């Protein structure tokens, strides 16, 4: 990283970037790129798309830097852009999945999901895989709030700022995310013992 900026305040660096200083923008990208990439990785759960989406986040950052008013911390603002891009991506994927599922069903009407409920033991699957799968099934709004809490360690108030929602809403989204996870994991009866 550029040493010239290490001694500067973040506000000063952002101001330089706003004024078109490319080195200042590079400093911001390199400071947050891995944080952004991991947040995307956790929310989307697909490593193959992380690099492209991280790139998209910083392009949006530089293009809308003029609108950044220093009212919130820079990372809050960057995280908000990241979450919005992730939610767009999830919706895009859901739409295309809905198409492909309806295609399959129209071609083969018998291919319906089975309702048989076989209790699985943890040995059948890696524990991490089970948890990751359960998290991936959460509605994006709940999942995002939970990840900002458990992975980013953000307090409720910061999560509220990133997601532009009330603290009470953050509280209930995280609570519901945990309740849903517990339900998903019920079939692995010894996991939470």
């Amino acid at each position, binding site marked *: 990283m550029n040493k010239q900026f290490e001694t500067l305040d973040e506000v000063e660096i952002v101001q330089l970037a706003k004024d078109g200083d490319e080195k200042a923008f590079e400093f911001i990208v390199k400071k947050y790129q891995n944080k952004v990439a991991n947040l995307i990785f956790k929310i989307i759960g697909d490593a193959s798309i992380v690099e492209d989406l*991280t*790139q998209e986040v910083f392009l949006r950052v530089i293009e809308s830097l003029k609108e950044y008013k220093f009212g919130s911390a820079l990372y809050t603002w960057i995280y908000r852009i990241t979450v919005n891009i992730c939610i767009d991506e999830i919706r895009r994927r859901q739409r295309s999945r809905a198409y492909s599922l309806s295609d399959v069903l129209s071609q083969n009407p018998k291919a319906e999901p089975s309702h048989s409920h076989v209790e699985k033991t943890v040995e059948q699957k890696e524990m991490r895989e089970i948890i990751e799968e359960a998290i991936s099934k959460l509605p994006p709004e709940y999942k995002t709030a939970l990840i900002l809490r458990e992975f980013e360690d953000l307090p409720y108030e910061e999560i509220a700022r990133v997601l532009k929602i009330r603290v009470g809403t953050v509280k209930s989204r995280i*609570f519901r995310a945990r309740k849903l*996870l*517990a339900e998903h994991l019920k079939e692995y009866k010894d996991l939470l013992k």
Partner: protein
Amino acid sequence: MRHAKIKKLVSEYIDGELKNNIELVKEHIKTCEECAQLFRLHSLVRETLKENTIEVSPYLFTRIQAKLKERKSQQPLWDYIIGFSKELAVVLILIFMLLLGIELISSRSSVKIEEAILSESPSIQKVISSGGDLTKDDVLELTLSNGKRK
């Protein structure tokens, strides 16, 4: 407090965000299996999320730079104009005011000439109607009448 009421507080307690009833929740977790599970779930989720992380390629910034240049070169002229819309508006207003000013000044001077011809100076009318063919007496009369008006 019963489980139904307390379970919402457990999630807040787990996150260190609970401000009241902390002891109550602590005691409840010791005796309630469902709430204790929520606590274990929190640890598992945390461990899982933190376990597997990634790093971006060292060329990410170079790629962003290239993309930025590409986007800038593709930007149509209209975007460029919109980018300067404020400045453009100021310039247009200035041009408009300037034209308006010129129009006002020129119309005012033409009124003056008209007034002079029609009412203010009958001597000029006389000169015009005579077609420039004035006698010495006419000139003397006009000079005297102009002097009186002043």
